[in-house]
């Protein structure tokens, strides 16, 4: 490798580790730069979470556009990218969903190599438990749809589930486990590393990542975007991409349009670390609980959203209680665990529970939002499709069905019925 011959440690490799070990780790560079903003960029992306950074990365990689600033109100990856349960899967019912989520999964499979940054992708397998007759029929239907879409999933029996996952109680009195939708390629990744890896790659291409820089206004003229006003001054841009999840409606208000989005709090919690007992990701949609075990040994538990608009990153206590109460029936051993941490994120929900990748009523403003409770798994595919939308000014095949026009035309991509609740 050429980088290993140079004195600087730009590229991560076994040679870089060996060389740095010899010189007391004095040569590691910052993974990304923190420059002051320029007066003007070709593309400004608001939001340095996974989706915003991935959009920037594929703008550079696929379209050679590197005059890009990614501006962030807080810190990099500190919003929903750092607040999710890191589940990755692509077993969706509708064709457009399967296409973009499976693109994301395929990109995840090689992302560590692509970014030269270990995102700790762990395709450990994912089970979606069927605990009612309705879910049994729903998941069988999804398996058939996935076969047509070329996404490999299967429907498995309770006995096979018990073999794969000895800690499960399949004979629960209220919600017995009747079967499961199994996606072998599904799994988890290290969420922070996804943001950090993309940020490092973007910075290496010369893009500017500007943190602690809140957008306070959007300037338009003749129906076209001109600039954004920020805490660090006015920044002109030819194109503006709004990739801000829970704050999408706030950005849209600044630009003068409304979105079919409601911002809700979604919570997750982790237990004290225990020895390895669960090498799968389990989703139990009937009881609103998701479970996986982190590399540290913590049980990572996700629940359902609150029902009312909320920007506080704090959720309601009863949802934590409902989630844990429901999971304990299926995983009785959890009842002995202490919970260490609990947190909330603000998710941007659309009516059909599908995302929006779209042009907007304002020229050269593009939105990528509405990923709701399932954004993390989509990050690479979302960035890939959004980069095409921003670069060309119109959506490519992956994003075409996710435009805002689907609401006026009634072409919903209805995953809310298909998925029950969850992502």
């Amino acid at each position: 490798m050429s980088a290993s011959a140079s004195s600087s440690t730009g590229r991560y490799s076994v040679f870089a580790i060996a060389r740095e070990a010899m010189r007391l780790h004095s040569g590691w560079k910052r993974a990304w730069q923190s420059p002051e903003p320029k007066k003007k960029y070709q593309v400004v992306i608001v939001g340095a979470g996974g989706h915003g950074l991935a959009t920037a990365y594929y703008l550079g990689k696929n379209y050679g556009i590197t005059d890009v600033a990614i501006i962030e109100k807080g810190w990099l990856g500190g919003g929903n990218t750092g607040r999710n349960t890191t589940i990755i899967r692509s077993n969706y019912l509708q064709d457009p969903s399967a296409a973009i989520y499976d693109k994301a999964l395929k990109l995840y499979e090689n992302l560590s190599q692509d970014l030269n940054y270990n995102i700790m992708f762990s395709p450990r397998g994912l089970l979606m438990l069927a605990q009612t007759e309705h879910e049994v029929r729903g998941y069988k239907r999804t398996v058939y749809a996935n076969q047509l879409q070329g996404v490999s999933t299967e429907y498995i029996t309770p006995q096979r589930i018990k073999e794969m996952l000895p800690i499960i109680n399949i004979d629960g009195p209220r919600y017995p486990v009747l079967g499961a939708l199994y996606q072998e390629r599904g799994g988890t990744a290290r969420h922070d590393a996804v943001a950090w890896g993309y940020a490092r790659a973007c910075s290496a291409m010369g893009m500017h990542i500007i943190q602690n820089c809140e957008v306070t206004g959007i300037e338009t003229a003749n129906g076209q975007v001109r600039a954004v006003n920020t805490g660090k001054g006015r920044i002109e841009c030819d194109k503006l991409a709004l990739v801000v999840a829970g704050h999408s409606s706030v950005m849209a208000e600044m630009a003068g349009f409304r979105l079919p989005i409601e911002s809700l709090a979604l919570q997750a919690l982790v237990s004290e670390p225990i020895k390895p007992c669960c090498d799968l990701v389990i989703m139990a949609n009937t009881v609103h609980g998701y479970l996986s075990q982190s590399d540290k040994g913590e049980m990572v538990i996700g629940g359902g959203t609150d029902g009312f608009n909320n920007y506080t990153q704090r959720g309601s206590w009863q949802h934590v209680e409902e989630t844990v109460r429901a999971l304990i029936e299926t995983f009785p051993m959890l009842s002995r665990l202490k919970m260490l941490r609990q947190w909330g994120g603000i998710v941007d929900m659309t009516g059909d529970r599908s995302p929006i990748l779209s042009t907007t009523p304002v020229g050269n403003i593009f939105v990528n939002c509405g990923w709701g409770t399932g954004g993390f798994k989509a990050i690479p595919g979302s960035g890939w499709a959004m980069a095409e939308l921003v670069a060309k000014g119109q959506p490519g095949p992956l994003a075409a069905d996710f435009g805002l026009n689907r609401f006026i035309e009634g072409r919903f991509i209805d995953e809310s019925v298909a998925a029950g609740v969850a992502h």
Partner: protein
Amino acid sequence: MLILTCPYCGISAEETELAPGGEAHLKRFGPGSSDADFESYLFARKNPKGVHFERWRHAYGCGKWFLAARDTATLQVFGTYKAQTPHPTPEIVAAVQAARPGWQPDWIETNADTSAESPKA
């Protein structure tokens, strides 16, 4: 936990007793309206970060729909009021302005229809 006082039965109800019903005071568009108006009525939402007016139902109580003024950025509740009003009542506006000086209504006041008591129904 969010606590709202039902303006009908007067009970101070916890969130678990209530069902959220989304943005209040939507202007309805139906047959004969433009596609854009109909779409906007069905889907476009203010979703503000700050003062918000929304519908709630006292689902495990008296069962009535009512309206609440709340801040989505702080979870502060400014007050609740009856559903039969096209805009938040003057009392609610005063309560919001007491807590958020400088906040201004974004609707146009019309005579006689801003009070909760005025609708004949």
